């Protein structure tokens, strides 16, 4: 026993020391500081040939159909769909990894709108000529979301805005004529509805409050709907204002007063859908994606035919939605930039957007399509969605979006769970965001 103990100690100590010593010795000769290639503001798009389109899978098959159509007419410039994981975090990680090693594999990138600033500032995507893309026909907010410092970096692909789902049957039974437009109206509508015997055990409202991107969205909407902003136009954080406090307070009070079901603190988009679909809440803030599953008549939805959508409520009048969606961008590391630009022009054209609507329910970025009677007949929520998107605000457009959204989630969650009071949480959030903005 005694004898082998020291030998053991040496085993790992020496090995660790050796490895570390080797490491420090070679450190100086290690990889040189990475220098990024310089990209001209007016990038020239040269080179034709096959490219890859990098995106998570489109379950509807609509994206692949657009690609097939392109490939049929461009045999020398074939586009291959490279699939990324379903998780947005993993997508971003893969995109960044490949940008860092300057891989030419990733040609056209499908980016979440909140990544635009980060990718643009790091020169991982090229500035695009707006005149080539039909930006003037697109909903301005969607173009704004794909823009960094007045330069367009992404071709808007599809968009997303908040919808306010409400139970028509319960509102009618309680004698509430129209869906509430303000938070206070919603509260009084709830009072009436929850007094009904058929609403026993229900809660008033749910959104997305788990510590997750959904919380950033809901917080931003609450603040904007109260007339505030999270960061101003210059990128300065503004969550120490009375408006921001009013916004966060609506959510905090919602939990405190039992307006929200207590497990809503674990809700992401899906759990919220389920709560509404099972008749647990009267009102729900969510994206348009659940409209079709709520309307399902196969017995899975208890609310089919009993709900409708409107704009989310604000403090005084219509609330302000947060903008979601995706845009396409071109990697500076691909050899065939001309093809890439032509492809995204083709892919994001109004004609292709209309064709994709036959398969996919993703909201197009062309306002005209929301007014097309044939489209609206199939998707009755489009008028409400257009109103929501037209009025929408982007989430903070900052380069360090990851750290920003994390700081927002951290503090908002602390306030919602009662770990911090509203003032402290917002003061801390302001401090963190200020520090990030200064970097």
């Amino acid at each position, binding site marked *: 026993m005694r004898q082998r103990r020291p*030998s*053991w100690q*040496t*085993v*790992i*100590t*020496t*090995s*660790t020391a*050796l*490895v570390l010593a080797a490491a420090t010795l070679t450190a100086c000769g290690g*990889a040189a500081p990475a220098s990024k290639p310089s990209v001209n503001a007016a990038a020239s798009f040269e080179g034709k040939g096959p490219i890859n389109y*990098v995106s*998570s*899978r*489109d*379950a509807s*098959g609509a994206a*692949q159909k657009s690609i097939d159509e392109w490939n049929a007419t461009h045999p020398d410039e074939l586009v291959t769909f*490279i*699939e*990324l*994981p*379903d*998780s*947005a975090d*993993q997508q971003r990680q*893969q995109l960044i*990894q490949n940008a*860092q*090693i300057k*891989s030419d*594999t990733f040609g056209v990138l499908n980016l979440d709108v909140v990544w635009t600033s980060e990718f643009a500032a790091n020169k991982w995507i090229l500035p695009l000529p707006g005149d080539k893309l039909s930006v003037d026909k697109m909903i301005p907010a969607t173009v704004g979301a794909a823009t960094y410092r007045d330069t367009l970096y992404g071709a808007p692909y599809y968009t997303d805005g908040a919808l306010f789902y409400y139970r028509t049957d319960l509102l009618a039974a309680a004698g509430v004529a129209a869906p509430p437009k303000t938070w206070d109206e919603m509260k009084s509508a709830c009072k009436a509805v929850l007094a009904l015997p058929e609403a026993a055990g229900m809660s008033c409202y749910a959104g997305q409050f788990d510590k997750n991107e959904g919380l950033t969205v809901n917080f931003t909407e609450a603040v904007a709907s109260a007339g505030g902003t999270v960061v101003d136009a210059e990128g300065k954080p503004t969550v120490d204002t009375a408006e921001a406090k009013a916004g966060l307070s609506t959510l905090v009070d919602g939990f405190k007063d039992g307006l929200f079901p207590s497990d809503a603190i674990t809700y*992401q*988009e*899906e759990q919220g*859908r*389920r709560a509404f679909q099972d008749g647990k809440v009267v009102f729900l803030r969510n*994206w348009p*994606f*659940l409209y079709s*599953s709520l309307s*399902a008549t*196969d*017995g*899975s*939805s208890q609310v089919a035919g009993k709900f409708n959508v409107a704009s989310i409520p604000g403090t005084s009048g219509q609330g302000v939605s947060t903008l979601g969606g995706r845009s396409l961008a071109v990697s500076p590391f691909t050899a065939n930039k001309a093809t890439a630009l032509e492809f995204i022009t083709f892919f994001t054209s109004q004609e292709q957007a209309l064709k994709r609507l036959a398969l996919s*329910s*993703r909201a197009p970025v062309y306002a005209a399509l929301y007014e097309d009677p044939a489209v609206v007949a199939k998707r009755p929520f489009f008028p409400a969605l257009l109103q929501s998107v037209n009025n929408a605000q982007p989430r903070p457009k900052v380069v360090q979006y990851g750290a920003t959204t994390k700081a927002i989630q951290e503090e908002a969650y602390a306030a919602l769970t009662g770990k911090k009071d509203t003032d402290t949480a917002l003061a801390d959030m302001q401090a963190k965001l200020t520090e990030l903005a200064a970097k």
Partner: protein
Amino acid sequence: MTTTALKPRTAPAAGTPVPARRKRSWRSYSVYAGLALIFIYCLSPFYWMIVSSLRRTADIFDNSPLPAPFSVENYVKVFDGSTMFGQALLNSLIVAGVTTVAALVMGIFAAYAISRLNFRFKSVILGVIIATSMFPGISVVVPLLRFFSDIGWINTYQAMIVPNLSFAIPLAVWNLTTFMKSLPFDLEEAAMIDGCTKWQAFRKVLLPLAAPGVFTTAILTFIHSWNEFIIALSMVNDPQVQTATVAISKFTGATEFQAPFGEQMAAGVIVTVPLVIMVLFFQRRIVEGLTAGAGK
């Protein structure tokens, strides 16, 4: 002593009680109850996985113990043309199989050297080998990606196999070293006295005796590489080469906010069951057969 204790037993069972007869029924009941508990703990989450995989997407959140209505739509979707899941399973098999064989070969040689030969710095070498298991896996990815893309290994099997070895080899070396060390040296010596060469003594005496250790290491490393995700995800973007875990991560729900839970559970069942069957099949032949021989 009772006669029970002296009866030859059908299978080697360490730590197994063969108590006096009057105690037997009480004891075997409690033992079987314990076995049942273990069984339930191991299998009930898996049962839930199977049940969930057989639900329709619409009622995936049900908590009923049996799927109603019963549906195989998730399994159909898993093998749906665009996912190339069959190919992914084959790729996983190749990657995990080669990793396992390579790790075992290297591990057996290294373990033999460490446990049977005399040389300096033995402890240091063992230390260095395990030190490679101490670095967080997620920090290995970016440097390796840069390195592999420099040498053109992106979208190749070896780009997944070689990093997998960094888990498999330390386990193989350490486990097999422990194992060989615990085996008596005199059998080999006896074989060599009988005229066997060192190599023959190793192959005909030591290796069969170490079989349970080899086999266990094989199962553990095979499953570990079978389940590896982050390296496989980063090194491969060609669906022809991607492994099953990567394919699973690319499943999408009906929309971007809906997790394809049913499909993922179905795929989980599909990747788990062959492993279990394989283990079931192999262990009967290898472990029991060889240990029966080893007892002699």
